[in-house]
């Protein structure tokens, strides 16, 4: 009832106002008449009536508030008022809106990337019903891992699948299976081995043919069938409509195509799958090992489709029981299950990477937003002091402080929303392009990535909340400050013009400038450190020779090569490559230097029981000479040692220093877990052959003997043109095995892959740093200009009394720059902490790089100086006579 009356009242405001007016006027008239009846004079009676009546205005206000949806109506009024005020000051509005738009736009953009990478649910029907299951082990663990440690073995999968009561279907798949698709020109494609309910659990229907049925997974090796992605079907088979029933070759095994997945479906990872084969065909796809029978090897990721009405807590409880039962077979081990709504990058290791990086980047863009906020807050402060008189009058005639604060807040939130909308729209518009650009510039060999960064409800909600918070953040302090004034001074209008009296606002303004400079300093130094890191990375000497060296990489075991077949292949290939014109050296190595592949093992020192973790490489004796890595002690392997797979080692200098400090490493022995002893015969100079920027890990080399031939890559040195040699090597491989995929590149290209992350980070931080600098210098400039304009009269007086221009300049600059200096100092200190974190992420960068730590502050200070010098110059040009008259 009362709500309905209020709504009516909202539309009949004028009528209600008139009625109220009449009602109160009637009251006054009656009172006046009564006073007159008592014999008071007419004039006197009216005044008495008024006096008794109190403030008519206030009564009206109180009555109106009873009538209206107070908040709704005042908000509407505040909005209109705010919009009018903003329209009246287009310059101020434009700067404030743009600053906010920059801050919020950057944040929205970064968040939508985060959202696209790791927060959006899987792009499958009923994604909200699908949960991912991962293991986290505690206690004693002895387990083989293919991929991430949280993956399941086939036996474990079958156990969970058979015994759970919460899923309508539980699927398993082995992600990131790289296979060679045979054909006229063999091609490397990425696919997955899946349980046969894979498509059914996800609710994915094929565009053509059928998906797997349980029969396909009946027995290992029984059903060589494959489902191809729409993408692969179109790009490799010309969208052949008769492809069903034909066979394709994957890692040299024949598979019959039974179906084509729906367009756009690329599996459950941001790196799309090109094919899916039954998990039972694992041995055919990866002949080098049999994972189906390995009960304690993790290689399968699990996703379940929750039965209707089952909550995720029930899933956790039910699956936990099964985990506990499996643990009984492994005394001392406890398995926790991480069960969550399935997203891309959902496995714990992937999540921690994404969220660590995300947190750092979000913090950086948050800082940019903070600078923008401080900027707008300062503008609002300046504006509020220009409106001091108006506010003071409203306060003194009884306007409530809350009312005025609210009205000012409405205005700032309005600015925030204009800026937020503008910034977010631009971000939405640009982000896909930026994402595509970044993806197109990933280094050679990086897998293709599907990145859906288009905004969804979550992104919109995020930017909405951020916008509202921003508006309140930069509006509240100025509003509170402006309404907390000394009324009489403000009304009289001489509250400004002299330093002393404006001090309160001055301190606040200076504090805001200080914050801006400090935050800007942190961002700039971080950007500076990253750029220095990039520069060092570009110019770094990895400590070994790369010039003229070509690497040829191939995977023999997955293509069904036995050790004997591999030996013959390698022997023949080396002979053919060595005969190429210009080639003067051919060597072999298990992993190529800086090739982003690492081999690791555990070895035990004589006299110790605890294993130490080593990285290693398996190389031919000439490897060290080719790469210019001299022996500092002892010798390289002999050809005899190589041919006999002798148990000898070459260790790096720092390995020798760490294991046997002050002793000669030559002759020392290490043993592996099969109790085989290896003897150190040489110590090679340290180089960054494994990780760029690192030389101090434990590292050894063993000879590339006959037993190692199936896993060796070629390193070729050529005096003549590299392109000709690259093509020659390709030809040689094709002549030996036309279906073998070989990746032939310059060794120096490996550096590129190391530089890309820091290049992306440096570009991002450079852009953010530039934004921060722009915003902060606008802030400094604005505050100094405002200070100068407020003190024109004081400056005039000083100059009349004999101060010369230099004195005035000094005065203005000193006052302008001290908050900048304090802010800069705080920023530098804050950054020392940040850089410690950064230097852990980025190789080759000292946490206290002097160029960044001295150069950046000097740069920022000179920008701040310039930003205050320009308005200060205006101050000294003041004509004293004009200044004294200045209002």
């Amino acid at each position, binding site marked *: 009832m009362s709500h309905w009356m209020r709504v009516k009242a909202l539309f009949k405001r004028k009528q209600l106002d008139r009625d109220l007016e009449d*009602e109160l006027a009637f009251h006054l008239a009656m009172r006046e008449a009564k006073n007159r009846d008592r014999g008071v004079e007419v004039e006197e009676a009216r005044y008495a009536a008024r006096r008794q009546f109190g403030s008519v205005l206030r009564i009206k206000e109180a009555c109106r508030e009873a009538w209206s949806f107070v908040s709704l109506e005042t908000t509407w009024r505040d909005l209109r008022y705010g919009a009018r005020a903003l329209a009246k000051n287009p310059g101020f509005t434009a700067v404030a809106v743009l600053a906010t738009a920059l801050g919020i736009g950057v944040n929205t953009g970064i968040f939508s990337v985060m959202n696209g990478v790791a927060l959006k649910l899987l792009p499958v029907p009923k994604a909200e019903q699908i949960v991912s299951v991962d293991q986290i082990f505690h206690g004693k663990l002895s387990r083989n891992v293919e991929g991430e440690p949280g993956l399941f073995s086939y036996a474990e999968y079958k156990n969970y699948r058979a015994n759970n009561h919460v899923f309508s279907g539980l699927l398993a798949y082995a992600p990131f299976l790289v296979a060679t698709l045979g054909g006229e020109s063999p091609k490397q494609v990425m696919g997955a081995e899946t349980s046969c309910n894979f498509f059914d659990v996800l609710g994915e229907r094929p565009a053509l043919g059928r998906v797997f049925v349980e029969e396909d997974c009946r027995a290992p090796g029984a059903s060589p069938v494959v489902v191809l992605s729409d993408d692969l079907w179109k790009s490799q088979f010309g969208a052949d409509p008769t492809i069903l029933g034909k066979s394709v070759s994957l890692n040299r095994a024949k598979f019959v195509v039974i179906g084509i997945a729906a367009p756009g479906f690329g599996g459950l990872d941001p790196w799309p799958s090109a094919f899916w084969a039954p998990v039972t065909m694992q041995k055919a796809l990866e002949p080098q090992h049999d994972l189906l029978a390995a009960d304690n090897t993790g290689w399968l990721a699990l996703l379940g489709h929750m039965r209707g009405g089952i909550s995720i807590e029930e899933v956790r409880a039910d699956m936990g029981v099964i985990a506990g039962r499996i643990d009984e077979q492994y005394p001392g081990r406890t398995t926790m299950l991480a069960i969550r709504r399935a997203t891309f990058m959902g496995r714990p290791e992937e999540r921690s990477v994404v969220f660590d990086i995300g947190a750092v980047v979000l913090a950086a863009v948050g800082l940019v937003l903070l600078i923008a906020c401080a900027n707008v807050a300062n503008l609002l402060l300046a504006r509020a002091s220009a409106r001091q008189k108006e506010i003071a009058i409203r306060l003194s005639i009884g306007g409530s402080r809350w009312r005025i604060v609210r009205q000012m807040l409405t205005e700032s939130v309005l600015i925030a929303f204009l800026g937020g909308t503008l910034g977010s729209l631009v971000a939405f518009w640009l982000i896909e392009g930026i994402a595509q650009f970044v993806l197109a510039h990933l280094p050679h060999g990086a897998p293709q990535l599907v990145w859906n960064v288009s905004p969804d409800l979550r992104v919109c909600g995020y930017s909405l909340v951020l916008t509202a918070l921003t508006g309140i953040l930069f509006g509240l302090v100025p509003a509170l400050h402006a309404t907390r004034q000394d009324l009489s001074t403000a009304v009289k209008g001489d509250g400004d013009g002299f330093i002393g009296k404006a001090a309160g606002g001055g301190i606040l303004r200076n504090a805001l400038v200080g914050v801006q400079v400090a935050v800007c300093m942190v961002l700039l130094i971080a950007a500076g450190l990253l750029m220095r890191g990039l520069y060092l990375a570009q110019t770094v000497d990895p400590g070994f020779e790369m010039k003229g060296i070509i690497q040829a990489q191939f995977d023999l075991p997955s293509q069904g090569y036995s050790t004997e077949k591999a030996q013959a292949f390698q022997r023949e290939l080396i002979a053919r490559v060595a005969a190429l014109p210009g080639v003067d050296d051919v060597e072999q190595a298990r992993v190529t230097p800086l090739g982003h592949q690492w081999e690791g093992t555990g070895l035990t020192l004589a006299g110790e029981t605890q294993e130490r973790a080593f990285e290693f490489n398996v190389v031919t004796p000439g490897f060290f000479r080719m790469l210019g890595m001299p022996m500092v002690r002892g010798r390289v392997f002999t050809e005899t040692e190589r041919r006999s797979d002798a148990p000898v080692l070459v260790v790096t200098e720092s390995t020798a220093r760490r294991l046997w400090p002050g002793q000669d490493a030559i002759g020392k022995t290490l043993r592996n877990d099969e109790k085989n002893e290896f003897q150190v015969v040489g110590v090679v100079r340290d180089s960054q052959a494994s990780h760029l920027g690192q030389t101090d890990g434990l590292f050894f080399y063993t000879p590339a003997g006959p037993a190692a031939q199936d896993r060796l890559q070629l390193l070729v040195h050529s005096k003549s043109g590299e392109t000709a040699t690259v093509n020659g090597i390709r030809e040689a491989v094709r002549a030996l095995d036309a279906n073998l995929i070989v990746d032939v590149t310059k060794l120096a290209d490996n550096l590129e892959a190391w530089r890309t992350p820091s290049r992306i980070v440096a570009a991002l931080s450079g852009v953010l740093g530039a934004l921060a600098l722009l915003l902060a210098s606008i802030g400094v400039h604005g505050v100094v200009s405002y200070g100068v304009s407020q003190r024109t009269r004081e400056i005039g007086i000083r100059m009349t009394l004999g101060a010369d221009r230099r004195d005035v300049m000094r005065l203005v600059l000193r006052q302008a720059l001290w908050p900048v200096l304090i802010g800069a100092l705080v920023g530098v200190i804050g950054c020392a902490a940040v850089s410690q974190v950064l230097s852990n992420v980025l190789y080759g960068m000292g946490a206290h790089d002097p160029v960044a730590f001295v150069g950046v502050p000097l740069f920022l200070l000179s920008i701040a100086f310039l930003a205050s010098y320009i308005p200060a110059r205006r101050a000294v040009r003041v004509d004293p006579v004009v200044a004294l008259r200045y209002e």
Partner: protein
Amino acid sequence: MEKDGDLMQGTLDMLVLKALARGAKHGYGVAEWIHESSNDVLHVEEGALYPALHRLELKGLLAAEWGASENNRRAKYYSLTAAGQKKLAEQAEYWRRMSGAIARVMQTA
């Protein structure tokens, strides 16, 4: 200490309802009636009276109608609705019990 004649919050609503129990009155009439009935002890501030009247009207306890006053001016007349009468009865009962209780407490030596 409060000034004599000030009204406790909530009590005013009850007095307004009571003033209208015998028939419709305009705002001034309500104020005068309370003033006179209390032997000139209670002054109803207009600043409190009109918002109270409007509030009660919104709650549906009072109905309002414009009519001509005794001196032929346009005036807004308030009267009790059924809900208003019920509310008045409740409040009167509550007040009777409370004031009796307070009086007994205050008389205790």
